């Protein structure tokens, strides 16, 4: 495995460019810090030579030394502050971009990933990158400059020693480079094991009631131990590699002492240097190993960060299968729908087989069929959550693939039975955090839906907090809010996918009038499993195992004793009259 420096660089340039000013300040602070570090051993030498040899005054030197200690403190703090600021600005931008990218990826991607795993990518991995940004500057730039400065100053003392320490540095950095990547795959395995454990927990925490009511507590807890076994195996393997890394790092320090002992004693015995200079060499040798030491102790970090970069990049490089079209305008008003030879499969099983139909604008289509017959899939294709495998779907005779998704979804809206609510106030839940939608408009919509009294019963009104997943709402209330969301958009095609399934009849009746208003001047598809729901349909389509088995005007089908629809009506009516 190789740490992809090129990719680090690309990321760095992209996210540092917008804050070059702060970045320049950071560089200045860093350089001052390095200068101070180089200066302090020089003063120490001067002092030691003065103390052991001549009778020069020592007080001034000692006072200056103490002054430097304070300046160093200020520099360190400022470096930290600006370093972290640059890092967090950059990673916040990256987190935002990555999350946006993940939202753009289609459902093929999302179906195979747990929420816990995506959180690991967009938070844990991206936060690691904050360290990458703040440390990369300090390490790669700062420490290389420090090493260069020390080597120059040692050469100034004695060129042979300069060469000796240069050789030592090259050997040390070479060795560190050789071993620096050995832990990356192990770190990745550990992260993966951690992500799986977190994903496991996440799924159990949202399913507490399901687990309890099936008496599966012990099994779930036992499964968690299994996940920890995998975690342990990966962690143990990683520990071995980390020990090798830190062993190499410590050996470099020992080697620095040995080089100092050999060179300083040889030069001193040859009377080429003073005792103070011998101490200077020792001082610089220790200072020299510190960047190595830091670089390699950070290698562990770099390796886990490297793994994070890879995972983030991996996701950034996944292209959505669904691409925006050339941006044809979605026409205003009601939309006509044409499906021609539409086939579709999620994986290998074909869900829709060559579907053909045409629905005039403003008409209401009722789609019936048993569960698994492809009704929901058809709806998803219309909203372009997936693309057809073959054939085409056209709105007003323009293929849906020619629109941008944003335009398309403004005009095609779908209400599903699963209503997603956020841990935020009612307003943000209705507008999806779109602050441009005025309260007046929201209140107007609530009125249309007959939710006025319901809202009035809540003292905080639109500021009422909705708990995550709508736990403080009944399923029916959640469904009503989903309707309110549709009303806030202005679609030309409305798809109601078993939308009223969770409403009790009395509440559903209350919605009828509102739905009438919604469907006025619009095309609609009502996917239902109950016959009553399709009463308002002009046209009926019956799907079975992904094929259209019946299509026709509702009234005609209802009157035709040989139609499936007629048969269904009989079942339904029979039930109603029994």
């Amino acid at each position, binding site marked *: 495995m190789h740490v992809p420096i090129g990719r680090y660089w690309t990321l760095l340039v992209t996210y540092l460019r917008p804050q070059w000013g702060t970045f320049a300040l950071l560089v200045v602070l860093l350089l001052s810090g390095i200068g101070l570090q180089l200066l302090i051993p020089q003063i120490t030498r001067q002092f030691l030579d003065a103390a052991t040899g001549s009778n020069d005054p020592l007080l001034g030197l000692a006072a200056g030394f103490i002054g430097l200690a304070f300046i160093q403190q200020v520099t360190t703090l400022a470096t930290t502050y600006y370093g972290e600021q640059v890092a967090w600005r950059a990673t916040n931008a990256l987190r935002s971009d990555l999350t946006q990218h993940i939202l753009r990826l289609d459902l093929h991607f999302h179906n195979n990933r747990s929420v816990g795993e995506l959180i690991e990518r967009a938070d844990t991995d991206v936060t690691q990158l904050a360290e990458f940004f703040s440390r990369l500057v300090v390490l790669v730039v700062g420490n290389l400059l420090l090493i260069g400065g020390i080597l120059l100053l040692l050469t100034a003392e004695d060129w042979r020693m300069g060469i000796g320490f240069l050789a030592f540095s090259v050997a040390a950095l070479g060795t560190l480079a050789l071993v620096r990547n050995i832990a990356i795959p192990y770190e990745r395995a550990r992260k993966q094991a951690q992500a799986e454990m977190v994903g496991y927990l996440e799924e159990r925490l949202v399913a507490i009631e399901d687990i309890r009511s099936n008496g599966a507590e012990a099994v779930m807890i036992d499964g968690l131990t299994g996940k920890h076994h995998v975690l342990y195996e990966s962690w143990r393997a990683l520990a071995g590699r980390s020990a090798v890394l830190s062993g190499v790092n410590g050996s470099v320090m020992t080697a620095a002492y040995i080089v100092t002992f050999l060179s300083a004693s040889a030069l001193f015995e040859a009377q080429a240097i003073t005792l103070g200079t011998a101490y200077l060499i020792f001082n610089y040798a220790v200072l020299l190993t510190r960047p190595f030491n830091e670089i390699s102790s950070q290698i562990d970090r770099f390796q886990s960060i490297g793994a994070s970069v890879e995972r983030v990049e991996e996701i950034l490089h996944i292209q959505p299968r669904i691409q925006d079209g050339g941006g044809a305008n979605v026409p205003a008003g009601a939309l006509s729908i044409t499906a021609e030879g539409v086939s579709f499969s999620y994986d290998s099983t074909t869900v829709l087989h060559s579907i053909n139909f045409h629905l005039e604008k403003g008409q209401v289509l009722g789609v019936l069929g048993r569960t698994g017959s492809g009704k929901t899939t058809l709806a998803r294709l219309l909203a372009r959550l997936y693309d057809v495998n073959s054939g085409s779907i056209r709105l007003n005779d323009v293929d849906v693939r020619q629109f941008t998704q944003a335009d398309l979804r403004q005009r095609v809206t779908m209400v599903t039975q699963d209503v997603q609510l956020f841990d935020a106030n009612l307003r943000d839940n209705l507008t999806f955090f779109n602050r441009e939608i005025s309260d007046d408009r929201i209140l107007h919509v609530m009125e249309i839906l007959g939710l006025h009294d319901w809202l009035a019963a809540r003292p905080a009104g639109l500021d009422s907090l909705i708990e*995550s997943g709508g736990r403080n709402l009944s399923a029916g209330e959640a469904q009503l809010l989903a309707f309110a969301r549709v009303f806030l958009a202005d679609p030309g095609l409305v798809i109601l996918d078993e939308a009223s399934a969770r409403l009790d009849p009395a509440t559903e009746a209350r919605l009828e009038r509102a739905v009438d208003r919604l469907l006025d001047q619009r095309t609609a598809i009502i996917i239902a499993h109950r016959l009553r729901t399709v009463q308002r349909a002009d046209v009926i389509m019956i799907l079975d195992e992904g094929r259209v088995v019946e299509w026709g005007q509702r009234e005609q089908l209802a009157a035709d004793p040989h139609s499936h629809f007629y048969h269904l009506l009989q079942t339904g009516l029979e039930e109603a009259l029994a």
Partner: protein
Amino acid sequence: MITSAKIPSWRVIGRIVRHCPGLFGWMTLMMLVWMLLVQVQAVAVQQFFDHLNGEVIGLGVLGLIGVLLLVRLARIIANWVNLRLRALFWVQTMGLMRHNLLGHILRQPGARALPGSPSEALSRFTGDVEEIPLFATFSTELIGQMAYGTLAIIMMASIHLPLTLISLLPIVFTAWIANASGNRIQQYRAANRQSSGQVVGYLGELFGAVQAIKLAGAETPMIGHLDELNQQRQRMVLRDRLFGQLLISSTANAVTLSTGLIFLFGAEAIRSGQFSLGDFALYVYSLENFGYFLSIFGQMISRYKQVGVSVDRLITLTPAEPQAFMRPGVIRVEHAHPALQTDLALADTPFSGLRVQALTATHPNTSFGISGVSFTVRPGSLTVITGRVGSGKTTLLRAVLGLLPSSAGAVLWNDTPITQLDTFMTPPRVAYVPQIPHLFSDTLRYNILLGLRRSDSDLLQAAVMGADVKLLDDGLDTIIGRKGVKLSGGQAQRTAAARMFIRQPQLLVVDDLSSALDVETEQTLWETIAVMQERTCLAVAHRRAALQRADHIIVLKDGRVEAQGRLADLLANCDEIQRIWAGSAENVSD
């Protein structure tokens, strides 16, 4: 935060260490070896400079180099052993705490089980749980550093006592300041954690609602809200880090200050040869390591406060038993073991009836709920609860099941009042299908059995899944994606129903099972329930298919029983059910 149930952090750490004392002992020993050998290096450096200065030392330069090599070898071995032990210690203790927490949460009344969003709880299961074992391993470092510090001070003092005291002054002073600012660290850290938790919680909701966001075309405003939370977090992190760095670098820079003081007060001693260059080297070497020790000590203090923050957060996860997370126990993480399979004991007594008396419960955080609800479920009957949205149907079911605590009233099983409803109302007595069942990213078989020991043929028979299983590529072994997305709504609901049927409970409890099913599948389902031997069923429903088969109907309105009885009688006397009945007519003729 909870203050009444406050447990001192050291006690928590002690309890966690006591889960595996042997490991902790060995880790400490390895740290001692690792640290004390540092001072051997310091002596080698001292000897080297004294040798240059003309003193006669025993080993010579090459001998000193030999010592350095031996020290390195010993430290490498100690470190390798230590890191391996840490891996085991961490996974063992973190695993046990998560094990305890999950166990407690699963056994607590459901609706109150989590204090925030599941993602928020998840951050406690990860970051906060990790904090305690991490501190325990840090404390082995501290023990090593303390042994080292003691040794270093003794050696320095034996050379020159006044200079030792003077040079330690700045280091001790900064350490004292660091100690004094402990509270602030805790505050900053808590604010940092909280704002990070908000980002994680929001991301979780965002990724859990991808389809809804796409359909609403709401990507941009949703990201806008993320940016707000991001910025908030940035402010908190920056404040926290800057303050932390202030403490760390003060102790580090104190060493430079100490060196300056040695210059100031030791100049004469150096000139007179009383304090040799070798001694100076030993001092600087020791002070640097001592400074590092104090900076570790400073970090320890701040980390110790962080442990306090994490413990508080863990406690709020399990308010009923604050110490749940540190309950002793053993989990085996070193060896793989086969997945647990459970058997269901048969219910010990036959079911003779369920009586609900004047049950009152409110939904947490709202004023909605049920009050004074009474009814009886006779063995072999189908009892249907009906009513419009918000009338309290689901609340009633959940209160009866103990998923929601009730504030008054009683539930009697076979004429015995049940106090621990939540543990009692489970298989083999009761099984329940919620309105929105949750599925796991695992095989279909796992999702139905949830560890129950049953053969595949039993499984297919018990369930209404036969046709579905044939449709799936790998049958029962098909992995159903996250939240079971690849299953249709009806299939997911049938999977949940299969979970219930295969447990053959004495009482089936169903919350609107039919809502995602088509007419024919729904009828099949009610027929399945109707023909089951010795089954008793309590269901929320409002469809005619269910109402007609019901032996007893309870009509709820605004959380109270409006009427109850047989369908025919209710239709004659009760307005509410007439409205529901009319609304549920499957009549399509105009």
